[in-house]
């Protein structure tokens, strides 16, 4: 029965594809004619923050119109977005965890990494601030104060860029969080803010998602990131990479490169900086600069890791 069903499912998939052959323009086939991307679909896997803030829906129509294409943006969280790209299920990936991006590049899955934009992280918590972290200059001191007072802290626990940053912060603080007060929820930023809100707990949030959701929660920013003069350790840089066509030959590489070229262009970078929510700028462009930073193409630890391959 199981085998029969699997065979049927395979036949079903084949039948559907045969039926839709006329309208399935995406995926492969783009490489021979490098100019003909019209009508194709670009699959972008990305982190929840770029999607939930509404940024991508705001800027993508420009790209879609310019090339006559469609962008399918899948919001997954940084870890899952990279995994989808690793499996060849997306053409381009936009995430915010430099360490994971470097690993992705070093392992040969990505090409042409570009710094895209940045914003910052903030530590948010209840107005009455039981751990007394309000206005602290050091993010690690603030986390240690939360740990010492055992005030509830909500961790994303989902291998996202924010979660990765949070773990790095605990490591920098020299504290290994654990116990009833430390709650790993395994969910997105919006959910983390809601859960923190309902429990009067602290959490680490990217500024963009927090601003876009501020009206729904009673949480306040207690420790600022670098945008408002806070510590540099809370900065949140985003990068964009094409999936390596040498690893997955049916990804839409031409369109992915067109996308990277477009989103790092002055026009799209302007659109990013002028995207506002509740009167506040959420993302700060980083691709256009007067002094080019070629390190953005080169993953850290490249030489040491590539030598043993």
């Amino acid at each position, binding site marked *: 029965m199981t085998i029969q069903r699997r065979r049927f499912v*395979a036949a079903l998939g084949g039948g559907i*594809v045969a039926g*839709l052959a006329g309208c399935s323009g*995406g995926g492969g086939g783009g490489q021979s004619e490098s100019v003909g991307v019209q009508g194709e679909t670009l699959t972008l896997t990305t982190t929840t923050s770029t999607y939930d803030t509404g940024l991508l829906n705001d800027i993508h*129509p420009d790209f879609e119109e310019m090339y006559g294409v469609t962008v399918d*943006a*899948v919001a997954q969280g940084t870890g899952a977005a990279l995994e989808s790209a690793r499996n*060849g*299920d997306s053409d381009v990936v936009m995430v915010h965890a430099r360490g994971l991006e470097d690993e992705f590049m070093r392992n040969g899955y990505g090409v042409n990494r570009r710094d895209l934009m940045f914003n910052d992280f903030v530590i948010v918590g209840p107005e009455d601030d039981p751990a007394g972290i309000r206005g602290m200059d050091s993010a690690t001191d603030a986390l240690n104060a939360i740990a010492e007072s055992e005030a509830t802290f909500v961790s994303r626990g989902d291998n996202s860029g924010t979660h990765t940053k949070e773990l790095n912060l605990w490591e920098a603080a020299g504290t290994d969080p654990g116990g009833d007060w430390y709650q790993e929820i395994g969910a997105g930023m919006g959910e983390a803010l809601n859960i923190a809100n309902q429990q009067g707990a602290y959490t680490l949030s990217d500024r963009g998602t927090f601003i876009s*959701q501020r009206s729904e929660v009673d949480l306040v920013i207690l420790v600022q990131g670098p945008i408002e003069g806070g510590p540099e350790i809370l900065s949140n840089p985003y990068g964009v990479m094409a999936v390596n066509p040498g690893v997955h030959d049916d990804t839409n590489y031409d369109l992915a490169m067109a996308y990277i070229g477009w989103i790092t262009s002055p026009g799209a970078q302007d659109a990013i900086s002028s995207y506002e929510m509740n009167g506040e700028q959420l993302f700060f462009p980083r691709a256009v600069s007067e002094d080019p930073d070629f390190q953005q193409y080169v993953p850290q630890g490249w030489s040491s890791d590539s030598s043993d391959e």
Partner: protein
Amino acid sequence: MPFEPVVHLVPGIVEFPFREGYVRSIIYVSLYVSVTAVALSTLFSLPVAMLMGFSDFPGKQLVKSIINTGMGFPSVVVGLLVLFGVSNQGPLGDLNLIFTKEAMIMSQFVLATPPITAISLAAIRGVDDNVRDAAHVLGGTRVDVALVVIKEARYGIATAILAGFGRAISEVGSVLIVGGNITSSSGISKTRTLTTAIQLEARQGRYDTAMVLGAVLLALVLTINAVVVRLGDEGAMR
């Protein structure tokens, strides 16, 4: 669209910040995916149920217990298995099905088939043997006999299809995994269904809009149930 009046009633009660066409498109995707999956499931399940109802073959008990197990198969596991199948790395990777409605249909097919098969089987077995014999005696071919039995068992089969449809349209785990919850930048759903839209709204703390979408989903399920029951009644009067 019958749902538009509902949408217009809502702004007085809660804020309804959706773009024009958004709700309509996710309703469309929900229905397209679930109805297609259930139709395919029915085409597959009915012959299987007939076969199992009328004939004996080795391993029949095993098939039965597999179907019964399948009724409780967790949807996220199905989603994961379909993902492995359609992912670029999987056996169907060349078909580029990941993050499409077709992938969602595949996972819902797998989810809807066991309940439809099991409940149809019960209904078919409930048909009096005399009906079958009579059809045979009157010179009916195997297909004629099958049609007579299906006609007799139509209430049970309708219940089976509704059960499968209920499982498909209310399902969130697998369609989120294999569909990707995509809308275009113009706010038109590609693979977003009512359930994944509700999940998204709840994730962002917009519980009121999530509730509105929940009400739409509930209304949709009620409407379809009412329509199917009504069709069954009309059939009985004829």
